[in-house]
C-alpha cells in the first residue's frame, strides 16, 4: 500500500517536472507576430536607413504599455527585458553594406546598446537593455552614423523588425521572445522597405 502511494507520488513529481520543462522550452522560442499594435512596439514611430545613416525616432509608448513593462520587469529578478529595433538587409550581409565597428550612435533609450558586429552578419540594431525604464509619451530615438563599405549597394531592400526579449548579466544566448516585421502595405509577403526612404507607423 505504502509502495503504491510512493509510486503515485513519484509519478506526480515527474508530471510536474514535465509541465515546468515544457513551459521553459516554450519560453525559449521566438514567436513572430503580425505588425502591430503589439505591446512591445511603440504605438508610433519612424525609421530610415541608408549606407551611412540609420535612424529610428519619434517612438512613443502610452501609459498602459509602460505599466506592462514595469509589471513584467517586477516579476524578473535575474533578467532584464530588452527591446531591439533591427535593420535586416535582404540579399546582402551587413559587412557588404557597412564598415562594421566604426559606428557612432546617439540615443535616449534606457541602457542603450548597439548591435553592429562582424560575427553577426544578418542585422544591425539599436537596443534598450531596460525596457522597464520607458516613460510614457516621451519621444525616443536611436541614430547610427555609419561608413559605407566599398561597392555597397545604394538602395537594397531590408526588413525593419521590432522585438523584445530578456537578457541576463554577463552573457546570454537566448532568442527574442517575440518579434514583428514592419509591412508598408498589408498583404505584402516580400519586404517593401528600401534604403533612402522614410517610413512611419
Amino acid at each position: 500500500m505504502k509502495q503504491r502511494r510512493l509510486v503515485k507520488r513519484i509519478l506526480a513529481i515527474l508530471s510536474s517536472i514535465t509541465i515546468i520543462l515544457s513551459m521553459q522550452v516554450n519560453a525559449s522560442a521566438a514567436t513572430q507576430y503580425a505588425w502591430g499594435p503589439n505591446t512591445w512596439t511603440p504605438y508610433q514611430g519612424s525609421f530610415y536607413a541608408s549606407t551611412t545613416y540609420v535612424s529610428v525616432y519619434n517612438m512613443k509608448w502610452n501609459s498602459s504599455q509602460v505599466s506592462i513593462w514595469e509589471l513584467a520587469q517586477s516579476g524578473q529578478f535575474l533578467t532584464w527585458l530588452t527591446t531591439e529595433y533591427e535593420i535586416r538587409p535582404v540579399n546582402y550581409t551587413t559587412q557588404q553594406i557597412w564598415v562594421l565597428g566604426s559606428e557612432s550612435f546617439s540615443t535616449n533609450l534606457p541602457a542603450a546598446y548597439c548591435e553592429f558586429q562582424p560575427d553577426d552578419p544578418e542585422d544591425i540594431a539599436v537596443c534598450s537593455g531596460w525596457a522597464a525604464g520607458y516613460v510614457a509619451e516621451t519621444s525616443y530615438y536611436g541614430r547610427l552614423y555609419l561608413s559605407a563599405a566599398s561597392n555597397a549597394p545604394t538602395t537594397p531592400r531590408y526588413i525593419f523588425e521590432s522585438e523584445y526579449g530578456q537578457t541576463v548579466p554577463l552573457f546570454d544566448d537566448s532568442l527574442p521572445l517575440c518579434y514583428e516585421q514592419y509591412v508598408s502595405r498589408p498583404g505584402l509577403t516580400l519586404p517593401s522597405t528600401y534604403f533612402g526612404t522614410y517610413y512611419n507607423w
Partner: protein
Amino acid sequence: MKNINSKRKTMAKSAIMALSVVIIAAVAVALAVAGVFGRVTAFASTEETSEIVKVFVGDIIRAPNDYAKDRFRYVDNLAAKNPSEKVTAVLGLDGYYTVDEVNKIISASNNVKVNRVYMWPEGETGRLSIYVENGNIADGIKSYMDKVNETGLDNDPQSIADYKRFLNGEYGIFALTITCPANVLNTLVLDNERLIYADIKYNVEAEQYAQRRGKTVNYIELPSKPDGAY
C-alpha cells in the same frame, strides 16, 4: 501499539510529502534559473537557434556584486602573466568629464589608444557613443559632428534638442574604450582612482560556453554610468 503505528504512518507520510515538495521546488528553481539564463534552449528541438552568445562589457551596475573586483583581478593576473598582450577594455569613470580631463587621466600611461568615448548629460537616460578613429578624442568628436551635419536629425524635435545641449557643452564623458598592453592597463587602473571599473573585452566563461556549443561570441559594450542613470 495502534497509536504508535498510526504515528509512524503519519510521520512517514509527512516525510514523503516534504521530500516531494523539496524535490519539486529544487527542480522548478533549477529549471527556472536555467530557463532565464537561456540554457534550456538546448532542450528545444525547434527550427530556431541562436548562434550568437552576447557578452555585455562594462555592464557593471547590473552584474553580480563582485564583478568589478573580479575584472580588476583579471587585469592584474593578465598583466603578470602576459604583460605585453594587447587588450581592449571598457573603462568606467567616477564622474562626467571633459575631453581635456579624460586626456589627463589616460596620459598617465603611454601606449594607450582610445577607440571610443561615451558621453551624456549627468543623471539622465541615454548615451552618445563616438567612434574615435585615430585615437584622438577631439578628432573623433569633430568627425561625429561632421556626420550629424551631413545627415541632419530627421527634423526630430527631441534629437535636435539633445544635439543643442551637446553643442552647449552639457555632455560629459563617463566611459571610454581603449586598446593597450595588459601591463599598461594595469598601471592605469592602479594609478587612477577615477577609474571605477576596467572590463576587458574577453570573457573566459562565455568563450568556453560558446565553444562547447559551436557558437560565436559577440562583445557588446554597455558601460554603466557613475550615477546609476540608464
